[in-house]
Structures are given as structure tokens and as C-alpha cells.
């Protein structure tokens, strides 16, 4: 197959069967350096990650190994790292590093890609060389200027990312240890041995290279399902610093966590979401992060963070109110009513019903956070109003001989989704015992 054809396939590669996909990846790997191929690989990357294909080991891959956890998330559900490094930045950076280190030296590092007695020593030396090279490149990159060498405009976050890469590479052997301890990624919960590993590696870093501690903690956080989990554990961790340094590190990390929560809370602020469950899930997630962050910050009262967290809470409040509570009653009852008009079989009818079910589930989900968002009264009002209209519908449909049983049962189902099975069973029993069964 010609390279042109392979590239033309593009996102079609996401749908072909697995065996073929593996074959195509092997072919692509053989001509990896071409920009078109790199573009194609970028398109199919989510599937590569999903299949966990064992890719050909290259020095570039080894170079990325210490900081790969900070690459931008591919899937929507993947946790977003607290400090993101763009893949395009790394792609631009690698040829510069290659040039800086020199072909001869790189060739000497090749055995590091395969198992052997000198593998570890070679890998460590390679990372150290790369760290020096990146640090040099980072010095030359000025924020706001266009970098010819990298073919990218250097904004502040890119300059920061460059410096981060240099720092991470300088502590790469410790990072490798951390990755082994916090594995497999993402780690849903911090256990004792995780904390122990972070502490002992962290202490070593704070002795040798205290500036690298912050990025080390961020790396540890990026291996967790929810990065804010680390924040609550951080205060009690002994990373071998003075208490003032510890407070500074804590504040830095808190700042990053809060900024991330703020970003996430902006997701659905203005646009109307079609999937209300996603809104409810996000709201639940944000409230959990907010609570975890607030508890962690008990130790360091900081007015600015308090203010920012309050704002996030307000925007979650507005999001739940506008996207979940508003029009819930009308939307759900209308979808059930549409069943009477013969919309059962049609695909629109089904879609409308599925949307209403989602809305009902979202309402119920939000019940768990309504208290902390100060929406309890409003939620109760919406729930009661919707349940009352649905009960009436169910009574009409199931109580008399002329009713449409499907409408009645669907109304009961909606009540179940909104108010829970106990309430729905009670209403159903009431209707059935009063009428036919």
C-alpha cells in the first residue's frame, strides 16, 4: 500500500477491524517521520490508546516517557492533567533535542530501547542529556514571540510547558519510580502504599532538587482519576520540606486545582446542553471536587481561593438551575403525552422519550447535591409538580378502560426515575387497587 493511500484513509481507520488496524499501524510506524503520517497517527491516537498497542520503541518515545501523563486528554471522560503539555509542542521539540544532543551520542543510547544489562544506566544518562538540551532550548524561547525552530507561537503556557519538560527530565528516574508505584493509571483512590511511595520519592527530590517538587506532585496528581484527591492527602504528607515551603507548595497546587475546577465549570455555563445527564454528572463531579478542595484548604485559610470557590459554586448552581430544573415538568410530561398521539413507533417519539428519561434521571441525580447548592426547595417543588402531573396521567391511562396502558406505565416509569421506586410503587399500587388489575 502506498503512503498516500494510507494517509487518505484518515479517520476511516477508526472503524476498520482490529487485526487490519494493527497491520496498518505497523506500516505507519515504518514511515513515522513524515508529517502526513504523524497527522494520521494523531487522528487514530484514541484508538491506539484504547487498544494499548505495543508500539515500536523509539528514542522519541523514551524521551516522552517521563512527562507523557501531562499530554492533553484524548477522550472526554479522561481526567484532565493539572498542567497540560501539548503533543504538537513535543513534536516540534524532539528534532531540536536530537540536534542538540547530536547524532553520535543518540546512536550510543539506542541499546536503552532493548532489554540488557546497561539499559537502566543508559536510559538515565539519556534523560539527563535531554534535560540539559531542553533547558537550553527553553532559555531561547521567549513568551509572545514566534519560535521558528518549534514552528509555534510561544505563549506563556508553552514557555511554562518547556520549562516543565526540562525539570521533569532532570528527575526522570524518580518519575519512573512514581509511575511504577501509581499504576495502572488512572488510580481511583489513594492507598497507603501509594502515599508511602509519593512521600519517599518526594523526600529524595526535595533534598536534591527542591524546585522540581511542584511538578512532581502535579505528575502524581495526573495519574489519579480525580487530581483534587491528592490535595486532601498533601497536607499530611511529609515531603521533607520546611513548613513554609510546604505551605507554598500547597498553595501552588491549590491554585492549579481551583483553576482546573473553574475551567470545567465553564463548560456548560452558556450553551444549552442536549444531554442533561452529562450536566448532572458534571455538577456532581464539580461539587465533589469543590468539597474535597474546601476540606483540604481548611488548613490554609486563603480569602482569594475562598472567593474563587464561591464563584464556582455559584456557576454550578446556575448550571443546575438552568439546565436541569428549568422546564423539567413541561418536557417530561409532554414526552409521555406524545405516546397518546401514536408517536410510540416513530423514531422521533422514541428520541423524545429517551431525552425525557435522561432529564428525569438528571433531576434525581441532582437531588444529592441540591442541599449543598442551596437548591433544595426549588428541586422539591419541581419534583412534586412533575410527579403530580405524571400521577394524573397514569391514573387516566391505567385507571379507566379507555386509557392507553403504555402511556400509563411510561408515566409510572418517569415517576420512578424522578422520585425513586418506593414512591412509584406506592402510586402504582394506589392506581391498581383503585381500578383494574
Amino acid at each position: 500500500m502506498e503512503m498516500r493511500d494510507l494517509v487518505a484513509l484518515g479517520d476511516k481507520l477508526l472503524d476498520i477491524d482490529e487485526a487490519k488496524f494493527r497491520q496498518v499501524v505497523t506500516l505507519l510506524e515504518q514511515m513515522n517521520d513524515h508529517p502526513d503520517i504523524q497527522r494520521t497517527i494523531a487522528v487514530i491516537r484514541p484508538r491506539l490508546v484504547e487498544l494499548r498497542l505495543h508500539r515500536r520503541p523509539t528514542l522519541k518515545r523514551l524521551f516522552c516517557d517521563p512527562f507523557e501523563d501531562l499530554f492533553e486528554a484524548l477522550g472526554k471522560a479522561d481526567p484532565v492533567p493539572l498542567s497540560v503539555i501539548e503533543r504538537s509542542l513535543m513534536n516540534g521539540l524532539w528534532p531540536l533535542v536530537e540536534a542538540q544532543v547530536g547524532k553520535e551520542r543518540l546512536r550510543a543510547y539506542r541499546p536503552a530501547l532493548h532489554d540488557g544489562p546497561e539499559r537502566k544506566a543508559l536510559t538515565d544518562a539519556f534523560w539527563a542529556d535531554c534535560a540539559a538540551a531542553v533547558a537550553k532550548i527553553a532559555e531561547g524561547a521567549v513568551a509572545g514571540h514566534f519560535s521558528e525552530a518549534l514552528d509555534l507561537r510561544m505563549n506563556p503556557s508553552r514557555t511554562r510547558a518547556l520549562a516543565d519538560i526540562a525539570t521533569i527530565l532532570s528527575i526522570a528516574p524518580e518519575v519512573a519510580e512514581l509511575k511504577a508505584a501509581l499504576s495502572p493509571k488512572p488510580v481511583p483512590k489513594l492507598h497507603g502504599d501509594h502515599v508511602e511511595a509519593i512521600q519517599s520519592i518526594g523526600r529524595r527530590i526535595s533534598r536534591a532538587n527542591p524546585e522540581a517538587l511542584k511538578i512532581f506532585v502535579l505528575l502524581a496528581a495526573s495519574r489519579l482519576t480525580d487530581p483534587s484527591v491528592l490535595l486532601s492527602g498533601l497536607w499530611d504528607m511529609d515531603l521533607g520540606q520546611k513548613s513554609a515551603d510546604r505551605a507554598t507548595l500547597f498553595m501552588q497546587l491549590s491554585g492549579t486545582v481551583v483553576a482546573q475546577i473553574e475551567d470545567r465549570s465553564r463548560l456548560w455555563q452558556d450553551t444549552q446542553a442536549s444531554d442533561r445527564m452529562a450536566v448532572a454528572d458534571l455538577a456532581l463531579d464539580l461539587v465533589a471536587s469543590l468539597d474535597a478542595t474546601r476540606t483540604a484548604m481548611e488548613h490554609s485559610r486563603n480569602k482569594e481561593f475562598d472567593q474563587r470557590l464561591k464563584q464556582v459554586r455559584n456557576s454550578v448552581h446556575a448550571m443546575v438551575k438552568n439546565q436541569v430544573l428549568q422546564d423539567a415538568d413541561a418536557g417530561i410530561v409532554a414526552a409521555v403525552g406524545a405516546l397518546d398521539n401514536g408517536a410510540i413507533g416513530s423514531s422521533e417519539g422514541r428520541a423524545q422519550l429517551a431525552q425525557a428519561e435522561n432529564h428525569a434521571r438528571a433531576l434525581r441525580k441532582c437531588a444529592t447535591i441540591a442541599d449543598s447548592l442551596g437548591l433544595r426547595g426549588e428541586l422539591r417543588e419541581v419534583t412534586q409538580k412533575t410527579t403530580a402531573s405524571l400521577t394524573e396521567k397514569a391514573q387516566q391511562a391505567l385507571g379507566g378502560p379507555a386509557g392507553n396502558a403504555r402511556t400509563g406505565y411510561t408515566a409510572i416509569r418517569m415517576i420512578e426515575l424522578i422520585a425513586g421506586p418506593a414512591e412509584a410503587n406506592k402510586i402504582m399500587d394506589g392506581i391498581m387497587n383503585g381500578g383494574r388489575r
Partner: protein
Amino acid sequence: MRSLTNFAPSTFEERGAAVAFTTPVLAQTRVRKDSRDQLEVLVPNLSEGRGVYVVPWKSLPLAFPMTVHDRMLHDLIAKADGCSPDDIRKAVLEAARCGLAGGGAVAAAEAALSDDEDQRLLINYQLIVEALKAVGLESTEILRVGLTSAEGQKLTRDLMMKAAQRLALEPTELYGRIAELAVMMEAIGLASSPKPARLRRLMRDLNGFRDSMTDWATDNVSEAAPIGGFCAEVAEHTVNHARNVIGQLDQAMASFEALLRQWETKRPQIRKACSRLSWLLDGWEYLILLWSDALTQDRYTQDMAVHDIFRVIPLLPKDEGRADQSMLADQLISSHKRSVRAYVDWRSGQLDVDLVMRIETIKGKAA
């Protein structure tokens, strides 16, 4: 409550038939009859350890909060005559059709019922053709005019009269035998059928499940991998048994004349084989769909799915398999125990909305 090892059932009837409840803790629990012919339900241990809870059917709603759909299904099963996999399936489809488990389940139940209807027509026609072929009569004419047309029915009647004469049977007797055979074989269909029937499809899917589970468990470092390997092994045993049974049935159907002539001796054998096949494959459909759904998700969900499958996997009863699967399952309990799942929302103790939704989605895919 008894340990899983001493519980290991000897027969299918003792193992019970799986019920497609949507309440997470009750999903795929098994129902059977006790010594006094009363229904009882077997709920796997809630702490994922050894043993099962045996709860009288009537008390089930008191012991576990159930969804409205499950309450209706519970009622329908209590009112049904028996609790064989076919009886349970009938009740499950009837409950799903109401709409209490969502639009997807309604569509799936209606598709399943219409598929049953098609298969019934198909097997009736195929058996008539087989009967005619067995006595050397040509049947292509029927196909040309159509089995359902008046002309076709008349033609069929005439030909069947002739066939009955050649077999030295009363025509009503021949019709009766074919009708009974059609009912027994409806879910299995003939080997030559252009559209495989439900249990043949299920067996094919189970084969796929075994392969995909084996692939997943090989070279996998996850704690769930040995459990996945075990599930694949159980699937393998089940497929082998099912293949034998289908082989026997296909053989019997291939010598159709002998089957019709020695009806009294062959009938019980066919009946037994058909019922055995439906027991063998009972409970697998949900697990196959659960797994194929999990395969599209992340690794953690896949691990959890393997634990979920292990919890309710239909082990072969002692009398069926040579290898004692419950002994093997018992050895895996210690690693299974590490993943205790909360079947309710831990914040409120109420039903976990997401879990119920997942079960309903799978129900919507079953047809």
C-alpha cells in the same frame, strides 16, 4: 445460607432459571421451586464471598427494594405455571413490553416476539417439507404458490394426506406430531434453516464470548484476569455440551422418517434434549451482552464487568459436567472478594440510578 461448594447444584432445576431483573442486586438471580413446590430465589452473597441467600419468592419485595418493572415481573412469574427458562422468558418479555424498563426494552421485546413468530412459521413449513421429503414427495410446488395462500394450504393438505398414507398414520396424527415437534424445536430451529433460531444464535455468541474473554485474560496483569479465564472456561464447557445436544437433535432431524415412525420412543428424547439446551444456555445472553458492552469501555469497567459476570455465571450442575466447576470457582473467591460492589448509592442507600440504567440498556439490546 450455604457455602458455594456445598450449594453446588446437581441438576438444572436445582440451579434455577435466571431472571432478568433490573434492580442491580437482583439482576440475573435464579428462581427455582422448593420441596413444597413454592418458588424461591437464590441471591448471590452480597459481600461477594461464598454462599447464597435463599429467599422465598413472596418475601422478595420485602427483602430488597425493587424497581416497578421488577415488581411487575415478580407478579407475572408468581402467576405463571412453571419456572423453566422458557416460562421465565415469557414473563420477562411481557414485563418489558409494558414500558416499565424503558423504550429500548419495549423495542427489544417486540422484536424478540416477532422473531419468535417468524421462527414458528418457518419451522412449521420446514418440518412439513421434511415430512414430505422423507416419504419421497415433491414440495417445491407449495413454495411456489405460498404456504399461507388458500391454494397452498389445499396443496399441503393433499400432500400430507398422501404422506400419512405412506407412513401408515392417520393424517391428524401426522399433523399432531409435526405440530408438537415444531413447538419443541421452535427456539432451536433446523440446521438447514436460512435464519438461525434463537438458541443457535446464542450458542454462536457464547462461542464468541469465550474467544474474546480468553483473549482479554491472556497476558493481562489485572487481578480480574484469572476470573476472566475461569469465565471463559465455563463458557467453553457450556458450548461443548450445547454443541453435543444440538448435534444429537440435528441427527434425529436428519433421519426424519425414522423419527416419525418411532415417535413414541424418540419423542421423550427430543423433548429432553430441547429442554436441556434451553437450560444449558439459560442466563448467558445477558452476560454476553454485558461483556460486549464492557469491551467498548475503559479497563476498570472491564474488570468490574468480569466480577459482575463471575457473580452470576451459570455453572454447569454437577450431574452435567465432569469437572467440578464450583470447586474451581471457590478457589477464585478470594480475589473476587476484593471488589465488593455497592449496589445502592452509598450516599443515600437508594437504588443506584447509573447501574439500573446500564442494566436497562443491556436489556434493550437483547432481542
